[in-house]
């Protein structure tokens, strides 16, 4: 029994204690592959404890396509020539894009504070027909892991004859903390090795990838020097030790399967002897064995609806705290503002809560530091986001409180925590941005343009709309009006030149007025001959112009005939004849004319012109 303990302890002593220098190596499973095959790239890190190894990113490749971004991981402990070594492997599968050469470029691996660079690897992709036909691979997933334990290829033909050990003597059990969780909720899976008393193991190592598609995995610490617990299972006495403990977080919803945990070892089983005092037979030999835990199935359900805006996917139990290094500073100085989230959950993928300082502050990308506590039954720790802010203006500012919402599966609801706002006093004069942070136009890359010093061109703030502006209509209509008037005037002028009748007609009234005006003047002076001459010219001239006839060559009878034809009535013709006879008397026998006859003649002439104008206007 003591010997068995020593063997197991040697198998499980952590690499931390045995590390002899860190090695980072990249290798592929084959350097020549067919077009239909896949190639597995493995980055193996030896000599470093798990908690200082950061999951590396897959390297850049050419001619290959990555099948799954999340690497499968494997940790192994091996004893070779009496030296114990622990290593961690990250594996990615790639498919070739075509025939020819393909290449894995160097990968960068961070272990602790050191970044290691792997060698690049070239592979050749040939037509699938040039590749040997592969035998179907035996499925590694079996419903009963114990049934395959002693049918491993490692068990060669010469061992077939050996009596098969009882699978209940040695097995691994996988115990998840929960089988039905919400997305991103933590599930702890513990792998326990059970072995009967008398069973001895040597050269044991974890083998194959422990894959869990759709789950984020974090290793938890297990006892480095485990003391087997004695347990009774199905009435049998077993020793039990914890092989591995891992926290997994579903990254999507649905039914997710965690692969079996597999170990390869050589086991020495006690021969069932009838002699109760002979526990181990001298003929007993170590036989290669493979052990596999059952697969673990986890149902991941979506998060409940109604998440607040500040929810960024955190599931677990968290506390929020903030810290600032100072609250009074000069313009251009810097402030360190730390947001810390601590608790249990998937801290590795936790994003920074929304944080927007006042615009006067130049904000730099946060430095993120994560501290994971893997020692407990659940993954816990803290994650800090350290912001550096530089105020570019002075004044009193308020840093807004940070709001962080997470879903707490235990409580079954969303819980929000808020930090208090912080008042900051910035003194000194405002600064201009550094040239290094300026655009091609000289404007700051991540800030508004500086104030414009020149007021520039002033505009009316409430200008009248064009369609409501009278000047627009005036500018449009006035030229049209002028054009119209000009057109009418010009036409009138042309007609005056071309149409004598029209011209005389247009002149009739002005000429008559002119003569009557002269007659009125003469009326006052008492010159009878000139007066009657003007009156006669006014009447005859008007009638001649309106009728477009030469009035001077006409006899009185001809004139009256023309007037009759033009539609002048008999009474008016009679008055015209009387007036003309009076004018003749006044011109040739002025002594017979009284002064009141002059006035009658003037008034008669004026009324005749008005009435004749009216009568001729109707008839013409």
């Amino acid at each position: 029994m003591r010997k068995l303990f020593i063997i197991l302890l040697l198998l499980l002593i952590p690499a931390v204690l045995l590390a002899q220098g860190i090695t980072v190596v990249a290798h592929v499973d084959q350097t020549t592959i067919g077009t239909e095959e896949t190639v597995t790239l493995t980055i193996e890190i030896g000599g470093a404890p798990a908690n200082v190894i950061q999951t590396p990113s897959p390297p850049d490749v050419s001619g290959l396509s990555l099948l799954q971004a999340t690497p499968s991981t494997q940790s192994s402990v091996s004893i070779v020539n009496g030296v114990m070594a622990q290593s961690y492997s990250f594996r990615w599968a790639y498919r070739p894009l075509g025939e020819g050469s393909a290449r894995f470029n160097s990968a960068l691996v961070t272990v602790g504070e050191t970044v290691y660079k792997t060698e690049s690897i070239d592979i050749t992709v040939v037509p699938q027909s040039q590749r040997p036909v592969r035998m179907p691979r035996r499925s590694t997933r079996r419903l009963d892991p114990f049934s395959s334990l002693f049918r491993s290829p490692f068990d060669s033909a010469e061992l077939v004859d050996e009596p098969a050990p009882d699978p209940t003597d040695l097995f691994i059990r996988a115990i998840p903390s929960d089988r039905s969780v919400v997305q991103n909720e933590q599930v702890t899976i513990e792998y326990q090795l059970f072995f009967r008393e008398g069973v001895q193991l040597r050269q044991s190592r974890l083998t194959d990838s422990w894959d869990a598609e759709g789950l984020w995995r974090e290793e938890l610490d297990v006892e480095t020097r485990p003391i087997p617990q004695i347990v009774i299972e199905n009435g049998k006495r077993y020793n039990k030790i914890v092989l591995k403990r891992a926290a997994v977080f579903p990254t999507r919803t649905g039914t997710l399967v965690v692969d079996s945990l597999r170990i390869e070892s050589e086991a020495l089983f006690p021969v069932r002897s009838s002699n109760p005092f002979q526990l181990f037979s001298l003929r007993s030999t170590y036989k290669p064995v493979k052990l596999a835990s059952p697969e673990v199935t986890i149902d991941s359900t979506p998060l409940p609806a109604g998440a607040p805006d500040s929810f960024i996917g955190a599931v677990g139990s968290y506390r929020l705290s903030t810290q600032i290094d100072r609250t009074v500073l000069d313009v251009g100085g810097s402030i360190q503002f730390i947001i810390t989230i601590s608790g249990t959950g998937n801290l590795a993928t936790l994003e920074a809560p929304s944080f927007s300082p006042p615009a006067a502050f130049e904000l730099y990308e946060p430095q993120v530091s994560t501290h994971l506590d893997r020692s407990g039954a659940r993954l816990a720790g803290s994650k800090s986001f350290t912001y550096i802010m530089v105020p570019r203006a002075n004044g009193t500012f308020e840093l807004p409180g940070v709001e962080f919402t997470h879903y707490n599966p235990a409580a079954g609801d969303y819980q929000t925590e808020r930090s208090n706002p912080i008042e900051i006093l910035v003194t000194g004069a405002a600064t201009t941005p550094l040239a290094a942070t300026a655009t091609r136009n000289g404007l700051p890359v991540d800030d508004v343009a500086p104030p414009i010093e020149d007021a520039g061109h002033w505009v009316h703030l409430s200008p009248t709309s064009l369609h409501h502006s009278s000047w627009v209509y005036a500018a449009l209509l006035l030229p049209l009006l002028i054009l119209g008037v000009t057109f009418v005037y010009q036409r009138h002028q042309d007609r005056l030149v071309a149409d004598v009748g029209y011209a005389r007609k247009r002149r009739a009234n002005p000429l008559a007025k002119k003569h009557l005006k002269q007659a009125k003047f003469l009326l006052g002076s008492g010159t009878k001959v000139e007066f009657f001459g003007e009156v006669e010219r006014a009447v005859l001239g008007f009638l001649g112009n309106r009728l477009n006839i030469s009035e001077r060559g006409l006899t009185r009878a001809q004139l009256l005939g023309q007037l009759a034809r033009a539609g002048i009535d008999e009474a008016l013709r009679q008055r015209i004849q009387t007036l003309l006879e009076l004018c003749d008397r006044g011109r040739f026998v002025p002594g017979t004319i009284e002064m009141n006859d002059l006035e009658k003649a003037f008034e008669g002439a004026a009324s005749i012109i008005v009435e004749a104008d009216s009568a001729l206007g109707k008839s013409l």
Partner: protein
Amino acid sequence: MTQALLHTATARSRRVLVVLLFCLTSSASSLAQNVEPTRAFDEGTRFLNSGDFRSAIASFEYAESLGRGSSALFHNRAIAHFRLDEIGHSIRFLERAALISKDDPRVMHSLDIVSTRVVDTYSELPIPIWTRFQRVVLNIASERVLMVTGIGFYLILCLMLFMNILGYWSGAWRRPIRAVSGLVSVILISMALTSSIWPAYSKEAVVIVGEADLHNQPDSDANVSEYIHEGLVVGIVSEGDTWALVQLPNGARGWILTQQLGAI
């Protein structure tokens, strides 16, 4: 002195003098109107540079109350609001500055920076071809420039017709000039008038509160169809004393309290 000048001048030179005096008086009056806004602008900019953002805003507000504005005035006021974390007002005045000076890289840069602080993102409805064309044209020349240029061509056309009526300027060159000036004047005047009646940039406003409810009806108890946030630019469909019907960039419409909006 004016009377002495007028007295000594001949009739023709008197007329010239009157016109010159009118022009001088007009420009002097215009300059005098800009003095006080410029003084307030300079004062506000000094406050802004010294970090006294509230006083800067007060000065800029005073300059604006005088009925004058400039791209620089609105830009600087927007910066003051931005420094005070008033994103809605900042966007509002930057949009105003951009309306006056669309090509100023400082204004457009500041608008880009401040817009990154706006929470809401909506897809935008496509702009009708006519409006796009209208905006392209108006980016080259304003409505007034279009109208004045159009009237210039219109006067050329009228002059040609006038001379034609009077019988002057006979020659084969008159017809193409008349046709071109007529066509150009019709196009420019039509563009100016239609842009004045149906503006290329519809009336818009900015949400100036942290979060505003968009109701289905102009009633506080009506269903809330959307929550919109500070800095979002919305189109004003109709506006009353208390409620305004607004259109979001994606075409959705709803009622919002007018006090939660700042007109651009």
